[in-house]
C-alpha cells in the first residue's frame, strides 16, 4: 500500500522541471508587470476595444472551426476515403506552418487577387483582408487543426458497438450521432474547442499578415501587444499580455472542471 502512495521520485522531479520551464516565463511577466499603473493600462479605451475585439473574433473563429471542423474530424475518423491518410496529414499543416506564412497563404487563396478571393471580389464584392471577417478567418485557419485532431481522436476512441447497437434498433444516423456519439465524446470535443479558442485568442502572425492591423476591425490584443513592444512601451505591453493570460487561464480552469475533463 505504502509503495503505491509514494510519489515516483524521478518522474516527479523531471515533471517539476518541465512545469518550472513553462511557468518561469509567466513569472517573469508578472515580475515586470506595472502593477501600480495596470488599472490605467487596462481601462484604456484602446485596450478595452482590442480585448472586446479579441474575444469576439476568437469566439467566431472557434464557432467556425467547430461548424466545419467537427464534420471533417468525423469523416477522417469514420469514413473510408481514398487518400484519407494524406488528407489527415494536410489538415495538420497549419500547425507546423509559421503563422506569418499561413497569412501569406491565406492572402494567395482568399485575398483580393487570390485563387478564390478574386471571384469573391468580382461576383459578390466581398474582400476579406482588412476586415473583421478576415481576422476571424485567419484565426480559424490556425486554430481549427487543434479541434480536428482532438475530435478525430475522440471519434476514433468511442466504442462503436454502442452505435451499432442503436443502428440495429432502427435509429437514424443523425439520431445515433446525437444520442450516442456526442454523449460519448462530448468532453473531448469541448476540450478541443477550448484549445482551439485559446489558440485563436493568442493568434498574431496570420492575423496581421492576412487581415492587417486595422483599428477596431482587426487590431486584436496580440497585435496591440506587438506594436507596443515595437514602440518601446514594454510595461503597457506586459499589462495587456497579462489580461490575455488571466482571461485564458480563468476560462481554462473553469471549463476544465466543468466539462472538458482535460487530462
Amino acid at each position, binding site marked *: 500500500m505504502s509503495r503505491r502512495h509514494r510519489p515516483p521520485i524521478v518522474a516527479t522531479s523531471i515533471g517539476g522541471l518541465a512545469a518550472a520551464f513553462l511557468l518561469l516565463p509567466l513569472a517573469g511577466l508578472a515580475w515586470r508587470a506595472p502593477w501600480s499603473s495596470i488599472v490605467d493600462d487596462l481601462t484604456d479605451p484602446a485596450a478595452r476595444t482590442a480585448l472586446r475585439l479579441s474575444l469576439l473574433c476568437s469566439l467566431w473563429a472557434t464557432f467556425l472551426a467547430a461548424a466545419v471542423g467537427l464534420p471533417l474530424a468525423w469523416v477522417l475518423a469514420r469514413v473510408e476515403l481514398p487518400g484519407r491518410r494524406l488528407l489527415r496529414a494536410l489538415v495538420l499543416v497549419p500547425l507546423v506552418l509559421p503563422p506569418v506564412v499561413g497569412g501569406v497563404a491565406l492572402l494567395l487563396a482568399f485575398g483580393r487577387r487570390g485563387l478564390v478571393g478574386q471571384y469573391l471580389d468580382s461576383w459578390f464584392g466581398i474582400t476579406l*483582408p482588412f476586415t473583421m471577417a478576415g481576422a476571424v478567418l485567419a484565426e480559424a485557419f490556425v486554430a481549427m487543426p487543434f479541434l480536428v485532431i482532438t475530435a478525430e481522436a475522440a471519434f476514433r476512441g468511442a466504442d462503436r458497438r454502442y452505435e451499432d447497437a442503436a443502428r440495429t434498433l432502427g435509429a437514424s444516423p443523425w439520431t445515433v450521432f446525437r444520442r450516442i456519439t456526442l454523449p460519448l465524446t462530448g468532453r473531448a470535443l469541448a476540450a478541443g474547442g477550448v484549445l482551439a479558442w485559446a489558440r485563436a485568442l493568442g493568434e498574431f502572425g496570420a492575423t*496581421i499578415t492576412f487581415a492587417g492591423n486595422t483599428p477596431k476591425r482587426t487590431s486584436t490584443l496580440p497585435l496591440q501587444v506587438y506594436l507596443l513592444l515595437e514602440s*518601446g512601451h514594454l510595461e503597457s505591453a506586459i499589462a495587456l499580455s497579462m489580461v490575455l493570460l488571466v482571461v485564458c487561464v480563468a476560462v481554462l480552469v473553469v471549463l476544465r472542471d466543468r466539462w472538458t475533463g482535460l487530462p
Partner: protein
Amino acid sequence: MRTRRLCWIPAALLTLAFAVPACGSDGSSGSAGPAPTGAALSGALEVSAASSLTEAFTELGKRFEVAHPGVDVTFNFAASSTLARQVNDGNDVDVLATADEANMEKVTTAGNAVDPRTIARNRLAIIVGRGNPKAITGLADLGKRGVVFVVCAPEVPCGAFASVALTKAGVTAAPASLEENVKAVVSKVTLDEADAGIVYVTDVKAAGAEAEGVDIDIAGDPRLEAVYPIAIAKQASHLAAAKAWIAFVLSDEGQEVLTSFGFRAP
C-alpha cells in the same frame, strides 16, 4: 520490435541538438579571441540593421568579405525599434544601424553604443502596383473613393513619417491597415491587396518590376526625411572589424552602393 528499432531517433536528435550549438559556440569563441591589429581582419562580424537597409547592406557585405576574406559578416535585419530593444536587452552585436535617430538615441542614452554617424538619408514615396491601375499621382489621391491604401503603424518610423505627410497633404481618409513594418506595406501592394502604400524610395526600388513609385512632393521638409545613423555597440567583440565596416560604408565605394539602392548621401 518497431518501437525498439526506432528508439535511437530521439536520442540521436537530442545529441544533435546539443552538438550543433556546441560547435557553433566553439567556432565563434575561437574567432572572438584577441582583436587582430594588423591588416588581416578576422572573425564573425555581427551587424544589426534596419530592414530598409536589407538589400544595400547585403551587397556591401559581399564586397566587404571580398576585401577582408577572414571576416564573415552576418546581418540581423528588423525594425529599428526591435533592434534598439534587442541591443538594450543585451543582444551583443558589433554594429547597429537604424532608420531613425530616435531609436539610435534609445541605445546611446542607455550607454550601449557611442558616437553614431550618419550613413545615409531616405525619402518617402508612394508605392503602387505595376502600371499604377488607380492612376495615383500624389498623396491627395490616396483620399479618393475606392482607393485602398496602407501605411506603417505610427509606432514604427515609416508610420510616423507617413502620418506627418498625410496630415500635411490634407488627407483625412483612414488607411486600410497600419502595418508592422515597411516591407509588410510593400507586400500588401505587390500582392494587390492594397492599391497604394507609403514607403521609402529605397523600398520601391527594391520591389523591382512588381511595383512602381510615385514621388511625394514635399521638398525640403526635414520631418519627412529619414536619417540613418550607425554606431559600434558597446558590447562589440570584433572592434577592429566593426570599425572597418563603418569606414567601408562611409567610403566612396560604400556610398556609391547605397546611392544605387536609392539612398541619398548623408
